[in-house]
């Protein structure tokens, strides 16, 4: 891509076009400001700008409590990511294995975990497992299902990466006398990883989003702690707004990191 498309489309405007653009820009800006003002008006009319709904954000305890929630979110997300990365590798190796007895169950497991909503898996761990005598802590009731469903997606991402490594690499490694395992883990997989790092990091955003279900199992993550704050201060709108902003910031930071990693390394 030499020039962005917008630049080709609108790159050399006539003086008249430039004047029109300026006017329309002004109108758009005014309309957006009016929109913001209308929203602010609605907040004011509904009494949501009153100090009692916001003043507890000035207290350090509030932020400490939210930070604790965020830490809970990250602890769950990190463990889910570890499960996903390791189990994903196992599933991918199974998926690419030659014996049908290994390959077909792997495919079935991947399709099952990938095709089922994470929330349904969480409900299974939360409501169904206890009835057959398996008791998990709230942390694992949240983390395990997220890790499992992400593992299936990660397995497919790994597979795409492995298939993208040129065939010559495998042949060359084999002709050097490496065993099949050595060919895979020393030659093919490290190269595959470089292709898929951005996709893996992007998957982390989905993991963080999924941990929002923590309140379903009453695990103390950001969303659950937000609910506790709301129950204490009867301040629905401000707390949800702040929490939504926190989620957006965390995920935006991860997305940006993945874009940065996606740039060519040489």
């Amino acid at each position, binding site marked *: 891509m030499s020039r962005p498309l917008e630049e*080709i489309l609108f790159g050399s405007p006539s003086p008249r076009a430039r004047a029109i653009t300026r006017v329309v*820009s002004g109108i758009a800006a005014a309309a957006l400001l009016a929109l913001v003002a209308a929203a602010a008006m609605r907040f004011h009319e509904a009494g*949501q700008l009153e100090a009692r709904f916001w003043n507890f954000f000035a207290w350090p305890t509030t932020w400490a409590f939210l930070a604790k929630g965020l830490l809970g979110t990250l602890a769950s997300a990190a463990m889910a990511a570890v499960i996903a990365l390791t189990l994903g590798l196992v599933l991918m190796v199974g998926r690419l294995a030659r014996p049908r007895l290994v390959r077909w169950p792997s495919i079935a497991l991947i399709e099952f975990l990938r*095709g089922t909503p994470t929330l349904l898996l969480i409900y299974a761990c939360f409501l169904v497992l206890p*009835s*057959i005598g398996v008791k998990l802590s709230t942390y694992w009731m949240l983390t395990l299902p997220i890790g499992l469903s992400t593992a299936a997606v990660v397995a497919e991402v790994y597979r795409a990466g492995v298939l993208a490594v040129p065939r010559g690499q495998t042949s060359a490694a084999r002709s050097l006398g490496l065993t099949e395992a050595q060919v895979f883990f020393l030659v093919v997989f490290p190269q595959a990883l470089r292709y898929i790092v951005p996709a893996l990091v992007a998957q982390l955003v989905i993991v963080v989003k999924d941990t929002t279900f923590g309140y379903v199992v009453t695990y103390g993550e950001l*969303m659950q702690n937000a609910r506790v704050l709301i129950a204490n201060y009867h301040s629905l709108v401000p707390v*949800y707004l702040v*929490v939504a902003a926190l989620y957006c910031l965390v*995920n935006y930071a991860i997305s940006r990191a993945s874009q940065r990693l996606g740039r060519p390394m040489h």
Partner: protein
Amino acid sequence: MDEVARLLTDYGPAFGQALFLTWKLTLVSFVPGFVLGVVVTVLRLFPLPPLRWALTLYVEVFRNIPGVALLIFIVFALPDLNVLIDYEHSVILTLALICSAFTADYLRTGINTVAGGQIEAALSLGMRPLRVIVSVVLPQALRAVVQPMTSLLIALMLSTSLASQVPLPGRELTALVSKIATDSAAGMAAFALAAAMYVVTGLLIGWAGAALEKKLRILR
């Protein structure tokens, strides 16, 4: 097996309705979400800095916000601002907003696949920029994003499970499983049946998407 048979006699029609509601929610949120995403993509092309800035904010917010957080905000916080939306429309609105942000994001990538020379050629034929976007850029961009849009549709179908978090009048699959698991001992069978329905729906969408992709893809 026994358990599944008993489940089907007890809850068979309920499962049918739940599956239908899941499909319906998927469809009625995908269509407006997709259209909105296309509109946002086109508007973002125009050289109007305030509009571009606002739409980029829009896309980043709805791409990064967790679906439940948005749904809970719409259902429980908006009434405090005197905005009342019923449960079903809240779910649809949530999914459509998220879908539109992802559509805008994917379509932008699709637009980048259109060669610059084509746009220069179209401009030199005397077409206006909007005409170029509608008749040259968008058709090719849309054909380039069939695969990511299929994945988005599957993800959206799975996200309809969010509806179980609000007291919807009807029950979709996840809400039905949680009800059966709470009421009776048939939780395991109900979970397996619902999971199978989700997986089959996802495979069907994936298959249809692949067929469409094969028909529409542009070989370069």
